[in-house]
């Protein structure tokens, strides 16, 4: 063995574990406001991811245990599960996870080699292929027209049956961002839209708390130095600036930056998705450019695109640019600063 003879004891597993831990507050908030269905989604995605990860590792002739232990497959599963509607049908979850693990991760070379964020690939495939199922979000428990118990939710997820006389519409609603877009198309004034029951103080009812929980988890990751400030700061700044500019310019048709921060995938994106090291740039300047670009695109796709949120597509688009960003943002070497 040559030098150094010392290594720190931290490991990839430890990093991934801490990220998973940082997601727990948001999961708790989800359960609190939208019911326990999300736990089923999470479990199903996790099991699918671990099974497929094992199969793929075997097929690729890699040691299974150390790679399973790295926790990256589990993290992909969780991020995807948290991005799709709770109480989505089982096949939706399995299909998305399969795309993420098999295609986006392993067919591109596995951990460390995949250029695209696997969870976002899974999400993009689902929203393009199954737009209906992907936009049926559970309404927050406090405002849903009717309630069904957990057993009935499971019946729906696995067997696609609802209790007698129950309509899915009564349980679900479009997301706050989606609602905003459709209502604006109907020429409703923004103030009237935002007083609809699904909106809370700044974002969607319940959803804003989940966003707050992502923020809290993100601050924990910052404190643990697992992520650097560059990505979340630049992403949030880009959303604020873009949304702020549109809002100032045309307040009748553009919601304030607050809504854009508290709704949709802004917070999970800022702290958990864009911070994926594998698919992002490594230089500090590169991280700023990458996240700022993603924030800008997220806003444009969210407001002008035909999908309910823009974060996933923005991330994937910026993933393409990463090699270029890295190449052009190399910091000067010691002694060669000008």
């Amino acid at each position, binding site marked *: *063995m*040559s*030098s*150094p*003879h*010392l*290594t*720190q004891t*931290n*490991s*990839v597993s*430890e*990093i991934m574990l801490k990220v998973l831990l940082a997601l727990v507050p948001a999961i708790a908030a989800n359960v609190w406001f939208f019911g326990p269905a999300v736990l089923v989604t999470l479990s199903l995605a996790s099991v699918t991811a671990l099974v497929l990860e094992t199969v793929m590792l075997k097929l690729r002739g890699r*040691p299974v245990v*150390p*790679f399973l232990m*790295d926790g*990256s497959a589990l993290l992909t599963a969780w991020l995807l599960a948290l991005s799709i509607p709770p109480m989505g049908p089982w096949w939706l979850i399995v299909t998305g996870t399969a795309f993420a693990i098999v295609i986006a991760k392993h067919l591109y070379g*596995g*951990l*460390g*080699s995949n250029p695209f964020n696997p969870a976002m690939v899974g999400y993009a495939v689902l929203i393009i292929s199954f737009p209906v199922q992907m936009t049926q979000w559970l309404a927050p428990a406090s405002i849903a027209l009717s309630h069904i118990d957990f057993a009935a939710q499971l019946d729906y997820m696995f067997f696609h049956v609802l209790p007698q006389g129950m309509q899915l519409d009564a349980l679900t609603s479009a997301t706050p961002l989606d609602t905003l877009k459709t209502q604006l198309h109907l020429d409703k004034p923004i103030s009237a839209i935002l007083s609809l029951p699904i909106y809370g103080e700044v974002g969607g009812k319940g959803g804003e708390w989940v966003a707050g929980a992502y923020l809290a988890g993100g601050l924990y990751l910052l404190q643990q130095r697992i992520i*650097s400030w560059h990505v979340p700061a630049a992403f949030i700044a880009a959303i604020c600036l873009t949304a702020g500019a549109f809002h100032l310019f045309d307040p009748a048709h553009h919601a304030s930056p607050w809504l854009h921060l508290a709704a949709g995938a802004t917070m999970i994106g800022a702290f958990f998705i864009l911070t994926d*090291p*594998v698919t*992002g740039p*490594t*230089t500090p300047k590169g991280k700023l450019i990458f996240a700022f670009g993603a924030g800008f695109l997220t806003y444009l796709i969210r407001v002008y695109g035909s999908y309910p949120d823009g974060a996933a597509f923005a991330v994937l688009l910026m993933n393409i640019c990463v090699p270029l960003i*890295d190449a052009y943002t*190399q*910091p*000067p*070497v*010691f*002694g*060669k*600063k000008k």
Partner: protein
Amino acid sequence: MKLLHRFNGGIHPPQHKTESTRLPILSAPIPEKLVIPLHQHIGTSAKPLVAAGDAVLKGQMIGKAEGYVSSSVHAPTSGKITAIGYEPAPHPSGLRDLCITLEPDGLDAWIERHPLDYLNMDPSSLRNRLRDAGVVGLGGAVFPSFIKLNPGSGKKIKTLVLNGAECEPYITCDDMLMRERADEIIAGAKIMRFMLHAEEVLIGIEDNKPEAIAAMRAALKEAPFEVIPVPTIYPGGGAKQLIRVLTGIEVPAGERSTDLGVQCFNVATALSVYRAIAHGEPVLSRIVTITGAVNKPRNYEALIGTPIDVLIRLAAPVKDSDGAIMGGPMMGFELPSTCVPLVKATNCIIVKSATLFPPAPQPMPCIRCGKCAESCPADLQPQELYWFSKAGNFGKAQEYALFDCIECGCCSYVCPSHIPLVQFYRYAKSEIWAQEREKKASDLARIRHELRVDRMEREKREKAERLAQKSAQARTQMNSEEET
């Protein structure tokens, strides 16, 4: 209070320094046999001056500096030369080196010593003395000091930096030296300042050595000498990093600090400069930390050539000890065998054991987390260098400043995937060197071939010309004969 600068990166590994600083420096006994390598410095090997059977006195030169970049070697005690031959040397490759074996006679009888009054001397004769006294950098780099004390004509040295930072874990030889022999270090620094005409002398010591800082301050009376505590961070004791911290100057790779008006020496080197000039004593011993998996870690003053296993035995190794590292855990190397002699570069011996140095965990793929880049004091992108080195894309690796890498190991230390990054850089560097050597060799061969072709053509031409001349002569002769 001097305003300090900082360099990017660096790490805070566990220090393990207190173990070996509890007891004062102890003189190791003269061993039964000393094996003195002739190549203990950067540059050409010294040329042996003695033969087997010769009796030598302590301090007698037994190997003479050969060429400019070289240094001399001396008998560390009196005795008889028993052999000159190739012996195992403390080198990572395990290759043998030309060594002189000396059997001490126990008298420890000195050769005649000639102290110099440096203030009335010309720096060039002082430099000759240092060269003949075998004074080299004792921080581990062992570059001949007299060369570094020659700033070259027209160059001005503003700052002389004395390096007492000692940033690597486990190593405490400079710490103990500063605590116990601060006066002699300062005296050496004065001589160095005189030789370089330096305006100021800054002595950088990491702030984890309060005793050394106090001792050095107590030994210091006058400006322009200043003891400056610097933050404890590895590799803050690297010459370039310390120069940066103390002066704000960044010395780029491949450039000399003298061009920027700074020169840097280790504190132990200053002490040997003092002994060589003021007492006429060459470098015969050094302080070495024996630590790690031993029951009695401490610093020893040991004669050059003392077998390392003898020193390890003095420190009582623990039962499951296994092998040893020479130098620090970050940049040192594993000794192929402990049956090698102590040399001027041996600042520390860390005895290994499986508990102290568990085998490295299985490497995982790079997840591009950038921790390595954050920790790199040379401001490189280790993950890119790794990628290119691994792929054999050496051109790209050079483009990303592979040769600015100082192999400090910070990147490997922090990597959560436990990738032995530095090994990849060493591999890439050696491949590039090999390619360059090959290219040079093939260039040489091509030139030789072209010259040969040229020569053959010339010879052929000349031969043809000669023939033509001859036949022309013959013809004229014939004609003239015909005419007559």
